[in-house]
């Protein structure tokens, strides 16, 4: 539409949640610009016009002017009340989810996102949704605070460990949008990225069907999936590179030097202990950074992960 601050905002891809916000942001920007130019102009104009000409310049005694002061208090007051109402309206949009919204469960953890569909399908760091339909994300965190943010939809909400929160949006066209975590959550906070992938509705159904019901496959396949979903890979590489924790490549039966100087050979029990009680044995050169997965993984799942790690040698 060609407004002066258009360059400031990214393309709006969910008008249902963002149109009011955008109009408000433009309004505040434009009114502020007018005031800022006015103030700056007055400053410069006065500084030039009334510059001191001699040391004994006389200045008039102007102490106050009630009419003027009331005017310039009331006008801004009215303006900010408009801004308040407008912001409130936009906020109601963000919090009023259409009844027919498609629901997806979201879990945030250090440092990634998992998305669960009601078919049982589960996927990490990508959420696939149908175009032209409202989508509601019901969110919780496994550890610390995170915040789910999609700039192109103008939505954001904190993700808490003890409480469900939600956001909703309706992407109009097929395409991709960036998801950020905006609540600082430690070392790899800035890598905690995800994508919203919008499909045409038919393509979405096909995609969802292909995902199956989750949990299927061989133990190794399940293990591989878990390592992604649980975010192990954000700290443990599978290709030998050194991240926050030791790499999984060649981990099986590797001899590890521990921080207390002793050594240990990696076996089932060591892996299991490291998952459930990570601080028990710290590998030399690494920080005690990992949180326990106690209660988050079943014994079968741990076994699947071990099967998978074995294949990385």
């Amino acid at each position: 539409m060609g407004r002066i601050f258009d360059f400031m905002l990214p393309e709006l891809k969910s008008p249902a949640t963002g149109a009011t916000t955008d109009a408000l942001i433009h309004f505040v920007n434009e009114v502020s610009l007018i005031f800022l130019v006015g103030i700056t102009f007055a400053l410069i104009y006065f500084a030039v016009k009334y510059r001191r000409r001699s040391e004994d310049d006389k200045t008039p005694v102007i102490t106050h002017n009630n009419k003027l002061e009331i005017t310039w208090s009331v006008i801004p007051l009215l303006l900010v009340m408009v801004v308040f109402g407008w912001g409130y309206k936009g906020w109601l949009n963000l919090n009023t989810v259409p009844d027919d919204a498609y629901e997806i469960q979201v879990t945030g953890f250090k440092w990634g996102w998992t998305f669960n569909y009601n078919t049982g399908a589960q996927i990490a760091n990508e959420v696939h949704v149908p175009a032209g339909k409202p989508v509601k994300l019901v969110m919780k965190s496994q550890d610390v605070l995170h915040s789910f943010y999609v700039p192109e939809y103008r939505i954001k909400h904190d993700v808490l460990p003890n409480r469900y929160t939600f956001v909703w949006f309706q992407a109009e066209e097929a395409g991709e949008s960036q998801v950020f975590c905006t609540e600082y959550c430690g070392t790899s906070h800035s890598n905690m990225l995800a994508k919203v992938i919008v499909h045409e509705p038919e393509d979405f159904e096909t995609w969802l069907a292909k995902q199956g019901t989750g949990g299927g496959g061989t133990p190794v396949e399940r293990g591989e999936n878990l390592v992604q979903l649980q975010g192990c890979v954000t700290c443990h590489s599978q290709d030998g590179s050194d991240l926050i924790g030791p790499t999984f490549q060649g981990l099986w039966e590797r001899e590890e030097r521990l921080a207390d100087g002793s050594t240990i050979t990696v076996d089932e029990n060591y892996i299991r202990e490291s998952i459930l009680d990570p601080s028990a044995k710290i590998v030399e050169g690494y920080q005690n950074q990992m949180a326990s997965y106690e209660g988050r993984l079943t014994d079968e799942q741990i076994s699947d992960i071990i099967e998978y790690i074995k294949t990385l040698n």
Partner: protein
Amino acid sequence: MATAEVSSNIKKLQVKRFKPAEDPKNTYLTDEKGLWAWLTTVDHKKIGLMYLGAVAFFFLLGGLLALALRTELWTPAKTFIEADTYNQIFTLHGAIMVFFVLVPSIPAALGNFILPMQVGAKDVAFPRLNLASFYIYVIGAIFTFIALFNNGLDTGWTFYTPYSTTTTTSVIWVTLGVFILGFSSILTGTNFITTIHKLRAPGITWSKLPLNIWALYATSIIQVLATPVLAITVLLLTMERFMGLGIFDPANGGDPVLFQHFFWFYSHPAVYIMIVPGFGIISEVITTFSKKHIFGYWAIALSSLAIAFIGFLVWGHHMFTSGQSAVATTVFSFLTFLVGIPTGIKILNWVATLYKGSIEMKTPMLYVFIFLFLFSIGGFTGIMLGSLSADIHLHDTYYVVAHFHYVMMGGTLMALLAGLHYWWPKMTGKMYSEVWGKISAVLVFIGFNLTFLPQFVMGAQGMPRRYYNYIDQFTPFHQTSTIGSYVLGLGLFITLFYLLHSLWRGKKAGSNPWNSRGLEWQATSPPDFHNFDHTPVVIHGPYDYHKPMEEFQLGLAVSHNGHGEETDVKESKVTTN
């Protein structure tokens, strides 16, 4: 009481013509010498200078950390430091700038020096407490330094739980440091409130109080009322880490959002602890360099108090996305707009003061202009962030980073620089180089905008804050910002050099180089140990620029030979208006 009546009352007393010596023999700087005399002094001026030194040191440290952050952000991935180090640096940068620079800067450093002089007192009400609060500040700082060399701290200066209860870094050292520091702030506030109530010189009624004093008064009220909440919050956090209390940590049944309520209940008012004293300085400098009566004295004075009070009711606007209740969110948004109004009124009053003035663009005045421009941008973007749906999009992005730098650096720091240049001749008796003053002010202005303007755009585009890596699309913005920060840093370094240089090479300042009507300028520069060698009696207001200078020096002082006479002045009710 009319001025004429006051004058006649004063004539009955033994009144001396009062004119400060242009070349004082014995000043507070020469009165008692040596390191020990400084470290044990109870003179508010020396304590003010010691604070100034400490604040300058922390500002330098915080600034170098900022340059490290900006340098790291030159490229999207690793430029020269690891993610963990980066996280520690932005935490320390934020914590140092907020708790060790901005909160104490104007009240404890400049305020300590100027407040007693502006009310015509010999010192603050409790000089020993004043010294104690300085040492408490130093001890708080030492705790924070221990953290620095002991694992660092990576929570962000906001210490949000449950991250702060689970990280392996030194949370406890820093929270204890901040806890101790809080006492320093409370003591300074109490001291100022008492001084303003009890030690005003004869003739200084509330309506003749300089606006700087009104601002410090409002600030002190916030310090005394809000700081205890911070103390309790960090203490609870410390106990939570030590003993797993389960107040904030959901793993033990606690509520992390509760921490945010506690934290912002202090930290939002703290924003006003940082900025309101700046408002005081702006009022002083703008009248002096336009030689004109302030426009809307009462509007400015009372709006400081209004800001102090409403400031307690808006903390929830930091939590629109946090999961607090819908009612709270709406009410906090509404109240936030109310606090914008008194601030806006002040800006318009200052601009109106210039109208028909006699304006001289000396360095302090240049900083006032820079302040008015930058702080306006900070204010307008604050309105944006106060409105609910816009904040949802902008919260925790670089838009917020830019906003608070415009407010805190563009506001508080520019005011501090204005005040520092304005009172430097009074404090040191020396003039600095006007040319270099202006050069560096221009560099600061350019560098500042180059650093932080792109951040508004970047934030609105979606760049989150506290990010070590970023996606490629933001590279040009980050690089502009980094270049800007070097220009800004250069400007500030130049300031450091010419101010220090003036101590050795500066021209003598004389008692009142700016021809100000303020009471502090009626003392010698640097002032006598007791500020004024006679107790001043004040007849004219601090902004009566329409009256000739001689009147300010006439009948201003009561002779000091014995206690009785000073009491006489009070009994003759010079102080009633």
